[in-house]
């Protein structure tokens, strides 16, 4: 067995972890589940490099790393929380559905049982599933600060930065994992009249990365009049041989779903996980109708720049997928708003 690291530490506090990182002066690295890191190391080895770290700093046993709580109007997730824990959390399922959906499709149970959400963020791939969901949830991340707002720091929101600031390029984070630790992410749970959804497209052959993933968070404005809303969906925009889909906007006024606020994230369509801000701007305040969706699709296509990636997907294919993915995720989110 190749030796990729010489020492393995499992600090129990953040301070201890930071001291260790400082001690190794950039020759140690943070590890959580290792599902990206260990494969990166062996891939480097197989391509002729000879990586060897002085130490791994396993951050999953730090006090507070397992936080998955609702506090002060935020859901806070610590850096030791695994995909499996997120999928199994009733809180996330109800109040951050997109994240539960995204985490549920990552790997298989064995991977989800060890892979952390924050590891997914730190790996900084533009198509990372959990990351895309977090981006649509307007998540913020905290670096080298305690995982939770403990009582003494209750009013102190120190160190929370928008998630988008963490990404520099494909696989490249602005957080240096040899010196820094992303300790937690937080975001507002979707409240009343709000919902989120995630969907992605995979391909069985070639690179084992999603071809395209998308997350949507939407909040509706309630119409003044009460009463039951019409829930008729009359099929998706037709393209090719399409059966009648169960969801989608009506071509007529759909009885009251007006989008007040919307967030859409998608990847890979840029070097970093991407927020479709122009599409968001277009959709906000609009009624959920077929012509609106069609228009939104055009806006989306104009603001993204997907590329062809060898053994994974062509640019043309991604462009074909975007409209149906938008209608799928948006449709799911709106459907959830209706109920």
């Amino acid at each position: 067995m190749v030796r990729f690291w010489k020492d393995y530490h499992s600090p129990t506090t953040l301070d201890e972890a930071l001291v260790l990182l400082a001690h190794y002066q950039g020759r140690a690295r943070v590890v959580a589940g290792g599902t990206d890191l260990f494969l990166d190391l062996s891939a480097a080895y197989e391509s002729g490099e000879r990586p060897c770290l002085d130490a791994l700093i396993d951050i999953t046993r730090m006090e507070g790393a397992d936080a998955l709580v609702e506090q002060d109007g935020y859901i806070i997730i610590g850096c030791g929380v695994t995909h499996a824990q997120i999928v199994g959390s009733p809180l996330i399922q109800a109040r951050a559905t997109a994240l539960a959906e995204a985490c549920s499709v990552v790997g298989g149970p064995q991977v989800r049982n060890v892979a952390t959400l924050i590891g997914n963020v730190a790996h900084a791939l533009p198509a990372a599933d959990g990351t895309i969901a977090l981006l649509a949830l307007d998540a913020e991340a905290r670096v080298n600060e305690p995982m939770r707002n403990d009582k003494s720091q209750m009013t102190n929101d120190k160190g929370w930065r928008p998630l988008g600031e963490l990404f520099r390029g494909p696989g490249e984070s602005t957080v240096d994992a040899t010196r820094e630790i992303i300790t937690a992410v937080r975001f507002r749970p979707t409240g009343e009249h709000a919902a989120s959804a995630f969907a992605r497209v995979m391909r069985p052959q070639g690179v084992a990365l999603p071809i395209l993933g998308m997350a949507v968070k939407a909040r509706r404005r309630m119409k003044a009049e009460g009463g039951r809303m019409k829930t008729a969906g009359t099929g998706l925009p037709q393209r090719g041989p399409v059966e009648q889909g169960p969801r989608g906007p009506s071509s007529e006024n759909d009885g009251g779903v007006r989008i007040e606020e919307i967030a859409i994230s998608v990847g890979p369509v840029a070097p970093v996980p991407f927020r479709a801000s122009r599409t968001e701007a277009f959709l906000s305040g609009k009624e959920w109708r077929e012509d609106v969706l069609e228009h939104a699709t055009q806006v989306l296509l104009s603001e993204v720049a997907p590329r062809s990636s060898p053994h994974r997907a062509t640019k043309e294919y991604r462009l074909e997928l975007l409209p149906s993915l938008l209608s799928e995720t948006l449709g799911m989110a709106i459907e959830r708003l209706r109920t």
Partner: protein
Amino acid sequence: MPLLNINVNGQDHAVEIEPHEYLASVLRERLGLTGTKIGCDEAECGACTVLVNGTPVDSCLYPALKADGARVLTIEGLAGTWQGEGDASSASAPDQPHLHPLQREFIRQGAVQCGFCTPGLIMTAKALLNQNSNPTDDDIKTALKDNFCRCTGYISVMNAVKAAAVQVAGQTHVPGLKPGTMKLETGKDVYAPKLPETKAPLAAVGRPLPRLDAEAKVTGAAKYADDYVFPGMLFGATLRAKYPHARIVRIDTERAKALTGVRAVLTHANVPGSKNHGLIFNDWPVLCYDKVRYMGDAIAIVAAETREAAERALDLIQVDYEELPVVDNPIDALKPAAPVVNDFTGHGNLLKHIHVDKGDADRGLAEADIVIEREYHTPTYDHAFLEPECSIGRVTEDGRIEVYVGSQIPYEDRRQIAASLGIPETQVRVIGTVIGGGFGGKEDIAAQIHVALLARATGRPVKMLYSRHESLIFHPKRHATVIRIKTGAKRDGRLTAVRAEIYGDSGAYASLGDKVMTRAATHAAGPYEVPNVKIDCYAMYTNNPPAGAFRGFGVTQSAFAVESNMDILAHELEMDPLELRRMNALRVGATTSTGQLVRESAGLVKCIEEVEREIGDCKLQIGSEKLEVGNPKTEIESEELPDLRPPISKFQSPTSRAWGVAAAYKNTGLGGGAADKSGAEVEVYDDGSAEVRSSAAEIGQGLPNVLAQIAAEELGLPIERVRVLLSDTDLTPDGGPTTASRQTFVTGNAARFAAKGIRELLAETASERLEAPPDKLVFRDGFIESDGRRVPLTDVVKWAKEEGRTTRYRHEYTAPETRDLGEGGDMHFAFSYAAQAALVEVDTNTGRVHVLKVIAATDVGRAINPLALEGQIEGGIVMCIGNALTEEYIAEKGRIWTDRLAKYKMPGIKETPEIVSCIVEDESSTGPYGAKGVGEISSIPTTPAITNAIYNATGVRVYSLPVDQDKLLLAMRAGRKEIR
């Protein structure tokens, strides 16, 4: 070294370990718990799954120190968690009360074949049952998504989990249901194993008996090569080529030799005997001396005290190369100006040009009312057997060489090892270990010669284990092909001619390339009577990995072309595609493309009729009329169809569904004039038990049962009294290669005749005592009977020995003679036939294809063991779904892109369709009890059935495999009618 505190299977351990060790290696190497298997080392395959504090994790990438203080459960500890059976004596007690219900059900449902995936699957399923005692199919598919099995096709696995759940629930939740009972109140076994209908069984033959080796496989006791450890054992590593094609200028091993812990570094100069090896063509360097011809070529080998030292030594070997131009496809290889990769045959890159000629193809095409002319492409495929290659070599005290290896051809290994060591074959003993899947990929030499050389050089045992990465780069693959084919027919559908050119990429060395391509060519007219046939097939050397045997043996490729053309023909003629096939089907009285008269055992028409009937039963029709895009034929009752959506997303994609059909045939046995022999020996003992011995490999297909059931049948013994010993060249006679679906037929016959020999011998002894003529004696239930009087077999064995007889009998069986291609007459002594229908669903938003259901009718002559047979059929179909939809091995200019399992997706449990299997038993007069081959036939027609269904669903014809959803969607959107 840090101390790891860990509780494994209820026992506390404090183990000193290195900080960089993963849990799997601590379990396997430090604690000796080798039931946890390593299939990939990349968290892809799930074979290494263990439970850490109750949750399943891939132990191959789980740092051992992360488990400090944890409870770990491995397969070895599973049975101990089950205290179900208090009263093992009660009538309802299961056969193996000491096993966990999951283990029992994996055995009973036939969910164990090679067994390499089994511990991981069972452990993952155990975690599922801990949380969910009544899992649905969807729950099981979600839980077992990342546990890959290459053998079973997963249906038996699902059944096993469900059946076990009932028992686990019975113990813990459902009051009144006795623990361990599978029977519900009606007395009906609701979770009876899924079995096809077959002929009435004999005493042992024809019965669905569970595998003899299954218990060892479900408990983790079965020993695969990497599970062996010898005192003083060294670890080997191989330096592979840096370029796909280069001249070797200089090799310098001095620095590597000087490294601490290194005991030997060997190059070609240290190969005393034959510098090359090879199954038929001796063209493959043991260690390269003049050139490297592909990235998997071995240049030097190292043995060292630790794996790490061996790996590090590789970095210190200096090789100077002179790069040469690369040939990366068979068509370029044939061009006159192409650089020569391997001139072993003296014809440049041409390994073999194969002709098949019957009648006058040009005239046949001229006479046709319609000619379909198309070009098809199939890529390279990897066997992806779950167990990577491993060999161990050692020198015995008397100076002989022993090699432990999971090989498909032990005697061939012995021959090649001896040749390269320059010693007599009798000085070499090859000992077959349990094999974690082969599918044709373990016929060639891997490290067998290398470990023998290293053991001789060091005087110590040496183990060489390939990583998945190395396995993918090194071992021979399925040939990539380009097939240009013309099919001519009359307006009524009668075929008049087939003319084809086939280019096969045989890679850097011959392996079995010429044989594989011969099979591709001889089967290139399909299972039909075609009066005029002309096939030109070129097996070419290139700088890609060698291509050799792979389940289907070339026929998988040509069947895709043939059956696609047949489907196009049916559409053009507006004929029912099954009717077109029935009309032309090979049947008794017909002549094959090689001029062989079909005299018997040709069940194709019956297979086609079975498929037709089953489709009818599904209230479905095959679209025989032209289907336009936007007008998919979907006359199905959607409730019947399984829901394959992911668990949370409720979104329903628009889909298009349709059926497609295909047929196929495949030879049993080597054929082509080769002497097809197998030896088997049967011995009966004083205690009335018997042992069958042969060096024939069990690669998961179920050979031990076939041999045991045959011997039990002949000797009238209960199956438990028969043992099977395979693949030890000192103890078992040569059974020949495990290839060409031949072992049931050839070694089955050898065992049968050997058992008959013993039976006659015992009958003579018994006839005196019973005063009855030997041929009137009946062997039954461990007794020999005549006219109501009987004597126990044990007594007869004793008497026979007293008479000075040896109660052992060896038989070398030779299969009916065959003729070489071109000579006419019988090229093969038997063929198996199949027809299949596949129901596919195409997601019209993404182009993603799912196979929902497969109907498979297979003519196997006679089912010796219906449970094992069903496993072969289901496994073959699912493997072929991979061939059609998910798998592709990619090399770019000779450099390997597919160098990890993550880049090679074999079908997982989510890809498993519903399978309806119909067995046709059109007996072969020379096969044992009428049996013929089954290992390959089921995996051949599935691909074209799927691609034909895709056409029916979308209007897009697939000319190139695997089906790429990217291209499919773009074609559908653009209204293009084909993808290539």
